[in-house]
């Protein structure tokens, strides 16, 4: 056994040396904290006092008596659908369209679509959707005669989910979009010429037979990014529609975790919330992997 390890080490010394700096930092700052947070989910822990083991109580409380949590699950799924799934499709269409533009115009559009992700410029949405007549949306709708009195986009329970979804979709193009751009750029363009010779004669066929298969790793990456960013949505929404939002109508699972973790200091409960969110994302990811493996055969 010991000999085997030594042999392996000797054979692949270079590999281990090259991956070591990453692994050391990764284990200290990511693996250890994640592993530590799992048992915390089974405790009552308020940071100050010692955690007290309470078994599955946090989990049973979440599903049996926390109505707001159940609501936040529904809202998170809505976000995941729009800012995850729909946005992923739009991301791809835009990246693909940009790729067929001349170089300069393409670069210009890439900057335009990526700017919202570069810094925290989202606070302007509070002014765009502002509830008084000064809000840009209200002022526009009033001046074209669509409405007569301003709508409380940020505080009226009927509208805040809509407002939050719009803002989240605006933000969600980011990482996935760039990865898709990189993937499209990595495609060897002689492949299209070969394809044309072999009878591929329109863009749609090019897309199905050449483009998508050649950028599969990037598509997978973008997919994971989109799953993570849409399921963990919450911070930006909190800044736009306030915390907590009216009637909890834009209250996501992440907002719920924030509430228990950083407002009430109930770390055990917050850890349990995050664990459930993680399990949901993991399941979704596995399902998508399975589907794309099936399609590849």
């Amino acid at each position, binding site marked *: 056994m010991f000999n085997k390890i030594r042999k*392996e080490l000797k054979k692949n010394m270079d590999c*281990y040396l*090259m991956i070591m700096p*990453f692994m*050391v*930092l990764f284990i200290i*700052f*990511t693996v250890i*904290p*994640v592993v530590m*947070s799992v048992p*915390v989910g089974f405790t009552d822990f308020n940071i100050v006092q010692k955690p007290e083991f309470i078994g599955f109580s946090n989990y049973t409380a979440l599903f049996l008596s926390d109505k707001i949590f159940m609501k936040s699950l529904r809202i998170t799924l809505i976000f995941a659908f729009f800012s995850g799934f729909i946005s992923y499709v739009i991301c791809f269409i*835009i990246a693909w369209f940009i790729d067929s*533009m*001349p170089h300069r*115009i393409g*670069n210009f*559009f890439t*900057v*335009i*679509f990526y700017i919202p992700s*570069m810094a*925290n*410029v989202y606070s*302007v949405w*509070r*002014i*765009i959707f502002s509830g008084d*007549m*000064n809000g840009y949306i209200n*002022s526009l709708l009033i001046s074209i005669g669509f409405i007569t009195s301003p709508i409380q986009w940020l505080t009226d329970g009927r509208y805040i989910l809509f407002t939050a979804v719009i803002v989240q979709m*605006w933000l969600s193009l980011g990482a996935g979009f*760039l*990865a898709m*751009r*990189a*993937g499209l*750029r*990595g495609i*060897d*363009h*002689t492949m*299209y010429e070969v*394809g*044309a010779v072999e009878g591929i*004669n329109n863009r749609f066929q*090019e897309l199905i037979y050449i483009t998508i298969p050649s950028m599969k*790793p990037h598509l*997978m*990456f973008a997919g*994971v*990014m989109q799953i993570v960013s849409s399921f*963990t949505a919450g911070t930006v929404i909190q800044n736009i529609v306030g915390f907590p939002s009216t009637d909890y109508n834009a209250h996501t699972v992440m907002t719920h*975790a924030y509430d228990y*973790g950083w407002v009430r200091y109930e*770390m055990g409960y917050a*850890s349990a919330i995050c664990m459930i*969110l*993680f399990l949901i994302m*993991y399941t979704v990811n596995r399902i998508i992997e399975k589907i794309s493996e099936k399609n590849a055969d």
Partner: protein
Amino acid sequence: MSGIVGRKKSGNLIIFIFLAISGIFMFFPVYLTIMMSVKPTEELFVFPPEIYTSQPTLKNFTEMFEAIRQNRVPFSRYVFNSLTVTVSVTFLQTVIISMAGFVLAKCQFAGRNLINRIIVVSLLYQSNVIYIMQYMVINKLGLIDNLSALILPSIASPVGLFLMKQSISQIPDSIIDSAKTDGAGLFRICWQIVIPNQKPALMTLIIFAFQSSWNMQSGAFIFHDEYKTLPTVINQISTTGLARAGISMAGAVFMLIPPAIIFTIAQSQIIETMTYSGIKN
């Protein structure tokens, strides 16, 4: 992509119009942010709200610097802190992740599959809760109130590694094998053959690293004002409310400039044709 054989040009106009319309939706809020940062305060209360200003002013920016100066720490100190964090994270992350990504994509060694699986799982586990656990680890290491508390945890980014690994995995094995038979070591193969051909992914990695570290708030890891980062202070002074909206927008615009520059440079570095031509058999 002009000049590809067998492709019709007629669709380009429709595509352009589609991109232009969605481009306006994406850019309008940014445009408004910039416009409001140079609007005189009185104009913020005008009805109907204007989307331009006839008297642009830099008053919001000077007020922002003024407000920061009241912290008794010079503005330049915050810029220095943020730059230190940004440059270290971006540089170290690019180097460390390039090597790790190459090894994970192209080398067979014991533990590789396990590591790959852990990376994907950890991608999904990003949350507020591990922040407190991270705090405990950093506290144990004695790094509180030290800029390395911001730098070290950000280097080993699973997102960046996953991106590099996915991209490098597309390089045909035959190229690496032939370099090996020529006697090149793994380290040389990585830096002289693989990474130079990974420009799109590499630039994407640099962009991610730069902007996430540039926008990093020092949060609970830093208590002393002189070690806080720029976004932390800008966030402090841009309280909500319309009266301070101008300052808040000025802060947002100021923070947007460096990532925008890096992004534009990185974009122009990627010359499309060079990517794979010649490498794929």
